[in-house]
């Protein structure tokens, strides 16, 4: 009787223990796999989600996609903070937007460092994730693609005029002066919107938002790195070799289609999406191997060339997510998967995928030669001192500098106003501003 009783008790205990073990295994497994995640993307990234689900079918029910206007993302996060719910788990957004939601009032992103292998991180293009790393070291996003600025030029036209592609900005200016004298009406650049800031000032290292530490920025448009770019641009705009229109202005496009564009500094996606070589492309409607690409020029005094960027986005994860494993797995997949990034529309930030992506370029006969080596090299030339700050410098640039130019003023004369505006914007965002750097 007692033996039976003991056996029973042991059996019951065993059964209980086993049930507990099974239960905990089951629940943790379902917790990790069970919580759905909401992904905010634009319509172009639907392909990324589809590829992830194809590779991970058991996650199909857990991923809820919402196509949003990502410009509203920072505003929405504020509203969610007030209701303590509703945050999306994964968001596709530019590093500038991610910086905004990383501020004290929103505090949205999850630190991805524990989830990302150091080896994988190292495989991103040099400096690509620089905008995703906060001054305190937190990794708040992973770059999806890059939009490094390079120098696009018309190969046959350059040959016809007997010009060589400039490798320094000094040569660029000299070329502009030559063009104005010998072939007036031909263009070597555009200075009509925020892109000009990235092409000419970012690549010069002009300090419009250099992060000294997490709360302090160095802003000084009187710095030689700014004034040298301004002086060059003033000369070229005055002699007409750089247009005062923006590159997408119908007037500028008309000049391009009538064959007046010699060269233009522009982002890596200009090749496919602006020059194109297809019937409804903006600049080149035929593909005759006329498009050449060169590294962005460097200032003679600088040790190496620096470049800016125009676009490129990233993926960020919410710190409020209920399923960080799935969310980070998704982000890692879409940023590094060859199957997706290899066929993506723009230059992948992840180098192995970028090498695969290169093949999509060679298919386009508009290029005079394979543009990928130049693009890849330029991807490593980001000027890291530009700083991923929370205020919109392009908006300030357009409002102050471009407006002044429309009134006939020079860039050099307007640098002071730009300084005042940048300082005001930075302070409004809560930064301390210094106008000199104490070494």
């Amino acid at each position, binding site marked *: 009787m007692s033996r039976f009783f003991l056996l029973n008790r042991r059996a019951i205990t065993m059964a209980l223990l086993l049930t507990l073990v099974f239960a905990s295994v089951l629940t943790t497994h379902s917790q990790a796999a069970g919580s759905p995640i909401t992904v905010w993307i*634009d*319509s*172009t990234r639907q392909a990324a989600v589809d590829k992830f689900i194809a590779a991970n079918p058991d996650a199909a029910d857990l991923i809820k996609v*919402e*196509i*949003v*206007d*990502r*410009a*509203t993302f920072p505003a*929405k996060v504020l*509203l969610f903070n*007030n*209701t303590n719910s*509703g945050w999306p788990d994964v968001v596709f957004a530019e590093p500038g937007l991610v910086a905004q939601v990383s501020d004290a009032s929103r505090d949205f992103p999850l630190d991805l460092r524990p989830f990302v292998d150091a080896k994988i991180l190292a495989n991103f293009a040099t400096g690509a994730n620089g905008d995703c790393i906060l001054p305190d070291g937190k990794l708040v996003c992973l770059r999806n693609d890059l939009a490094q600025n390079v120098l696009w030029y018309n190969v046959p036209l350059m040959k016809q005029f007997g010009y060589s592609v400039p490798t320094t900005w000094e040569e660029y200016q000299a070329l502009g002066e030559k063009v104005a004298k010998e072939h007036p009406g031909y263009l070597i650049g555009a200075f009509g919107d925020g*892109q000009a800031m990235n092409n000419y000032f970012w690549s010069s290292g002009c300090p419009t938002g250099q992060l000294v530490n997490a709360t302090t920025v160095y802003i000084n448009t009187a710095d030689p790195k700014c004034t040298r770019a301004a002086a060059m641009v003033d000369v070229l705009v005055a002699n007409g070799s750089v247009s005062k229109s923006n590159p*997408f202005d*119908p007037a500028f496009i008309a000049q391009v289609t009538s064959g007046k564009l010699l060269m233009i500094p522009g982002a890596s*996606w200009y090749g*496919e*999406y*602006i020059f194109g070589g297809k019937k*409804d492309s*903006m600049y080149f409607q035929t593909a005759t191997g006329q498009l050449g690409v060169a590294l962005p020029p460097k200032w003679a005094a600088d040790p190496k060339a620096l470049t800016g960027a*125009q*676009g490129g986005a990233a993926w960020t994860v919410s710190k409020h997510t209920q399923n960080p494993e799935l969310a980070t797995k998704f982000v890692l997949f879409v940023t590094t998967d060859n199957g997706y990034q290899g066929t993506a*529309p*723009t230059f992948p930030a992840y180098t192995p995928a970028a090498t695969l992506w290169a093949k999509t370029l060679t298919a386009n006969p508009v290029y005079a030669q394979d543009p990928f080596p130049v693009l890849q090299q330029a991807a490593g030339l980001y000027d890291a001192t530009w700083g991923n700050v929370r205020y919109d410098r392009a908006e300030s640039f357009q409002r102050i500098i471009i407006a002044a130019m429309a009134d006939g003023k020079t860039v050099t004369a307007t640098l002071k106003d730009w300084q005042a505006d940048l300082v005001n914007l930075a302070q409004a965002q809560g930064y301390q501003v210094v106008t000199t750097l104490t070494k």
Partner: protein
Amino acid sequence: MTDLTKNPPLVSSPPRGVGRLYRAILGDMGAAGFILWLVVLLTAAIFFGLPLLWLLLAPSKTDNELLNLTPLAFGTLAGYAKAWANLNTFNNGVISRWAFNSLWYSLTSLILSLAIALPAGYALAVAQFRGRRVILFLTLITMIVPGSALVLPLFLEVNVVGLVNTPWAVIIPSAFFPFGVYLSFIYFANSLPKDLLAAARVDGANEWQLFRFVGLPLARSLLGLLAFLSFTANWNNYFLPFVMLNNNTLYTLPLGLQALVTGTSALYPTFATDLPLKRPEATLTGLITVVPVVIVFLFSQRYVISGALTGATKD
């Protein structure tokens, strides 16, 4: 008695023949006055009408045709179909969903706001009760307060009852129509026949009966005008749905189209996207938001324009 010798009346003996035609056209104006009158009004008509005419014709053209053909040229009927098909490539044709949402949010809000504004305007105009001036003053203030100040408080209020991200978060606040109450107040204050009301009261009619049998029938034209204004305001409202709705499938047309236009290369080419959204599609989005309102307008035309605010004492 007016001295007819000093100021002869304008009405002279009826003209004959060409003179009659001349008279019929010019009416009481001189020739120069008539021409000036016509020029001013026709210039205004061009200002108001030409953009919409252009908008009607624009989606029929391709992006290049928009630049190269004359502004009022017609492209092809297939152009509309193509532009619509292109718009539907955005998020699996969610645009139809947006149109449906806009329609039912606006209609529901419309009914609610009329049911609230009409009686309120009547009461404010007809009765002397405590708080009348306060209500009018508060209404005025509410119309002047900038919307951005009220956004977060409104959002928090709606959130307290758990209605955020539901259609009711848009419908119920939209039913608050202070402008309609003001308009209703001014209308009733100016066109209700006071003597008729007083007589009816002496006869023993209570206020409900007065409202139902005197006020409401007279307000038919006001109803049309208010309905149109309320519907239009709700249909075109951007800010409220923006704050209240997160789910893309709940969006209204202005909200969704805004996202569509700014998130693609329809107007701003810095976004590299493969979607075929260019200028004709952008104009089609404009047309889509306009057409339903114009239809509502044409239906309520009788009330809105021709009889707008006509009072009961017009002989």
